[in-house]
């Protein structure tokens, strides 16, 4: 007798769920004083900051707007703004 079991074979398939819709504030990467330290990349709980060479941005499909990146950026080069539609 075959029984259904809870096996998920697609790694990272949570990406089907775009958590960006949760956001009330959005990080704006100013690209002015970035010193390429990548602290924002390190501290984002959701791991949604990408880029290279002092040019980083949040993937807004997934960013939940927690504000940690802006809070931790030592150069104050990220600003949280209210999400308006």
């Amino acid at each position, binding site marked *: 007798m075959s029984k259904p079991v809870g096996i*998920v074979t697609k*790694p990272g398939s*949570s990406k089907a*769920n775009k958590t960006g819709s949760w956001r009330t504030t959005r990080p704006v990467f100013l690209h002015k004083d970035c010193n390429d330290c990548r602290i924002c990349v*390190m501290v984002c*709980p*959701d*791991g949604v900051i*990408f880029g*290279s060479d002092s040019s980083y941005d949040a993937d807004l499909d997934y960013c939940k707007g927690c504000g940690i990146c802006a809070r931790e950026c030592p150069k104050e080069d990220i600003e949280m703004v209210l999400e308006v539609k």
Partner: protein
Amino acid sequence: MVDTAKKKEKPPVVESLLAPGHRACAGCGEALAARLIMDAAGSNTIVATTTGCLEVFSTPYPESAWKVAWIHSLFENSSAVAAGIEVGLRALGREAGINIIAQGGDGATADIGIGCLSGMFERGHNILYICYDNEAYMNTGVQRSGLTPFDSHTSTSPSGSVSWGNPTEKKPLPQIAAAHGIPYVAVATAGYPVDLQNKVKRALSIKGPKYLQVHVPCPLGWAHKPEDTIEIGRLAVLTGLYPIYEMENGEVTKVRKLGKKRLPVEAYLKPQGRFRHLFAKPEGKEEIKRIQKIADGNIERFGLV
């Protein structure tokens, strides 16, 4: 122009082994720690995870945020499930180069799962156990656990006219783990991400059972602002309330010193709603003194200044 010859090349940022799209609250310290831990461990890793926020937010069927081999155990037995995996791999002669991680929340680890965990230590499995310490049963609505701190308000240790919140202090789980004679025990925090990743790498380089306890601020259960997650983690360390250190073969080998950065406990308590009641009445001052005593005790014991 930037002198590209002098600048150290960094490859572009790649997606984590814990993918986005998961349902952790905005600013979740547990999600942050899990992501950092997975990226430090690397893709040759098998993970068993107990029931709790980490499991629930990462695997709403049929999706999974995990990009490594991952299994959901019961609430109490990720250590036993991982032990089976480790023994199975050895029986097949396929254990080389594979990391095995068992993990769970503080409730799963300090309370219901402590028996299975003790057995895993006793039998000497080559497994890293990680306790995500958000200091209560978050996934079921913030009930107190053996790792909930003194005077914290939870749904089963409510503060009010007859109580200041949780009446007990944190169970000394790192010391209980070390008393099993295991080779490596460490305490880390989402507040110091590089230190956390170094401890994961160090642990995985050692053969035998390892215990890593990670302090993970929970904006929902602790009632702090989501953007403060890292700061709250750091403040726990800087006040002496959550010392971070390493132990090898039962001896403390490394501690993060506070030096002049040391802060009074109020700095940590004040931004968190779970300690709000301590500031609402004048008698709360006496309670804060008791919490300062706990911090002073840690500072003395671990030589933090």
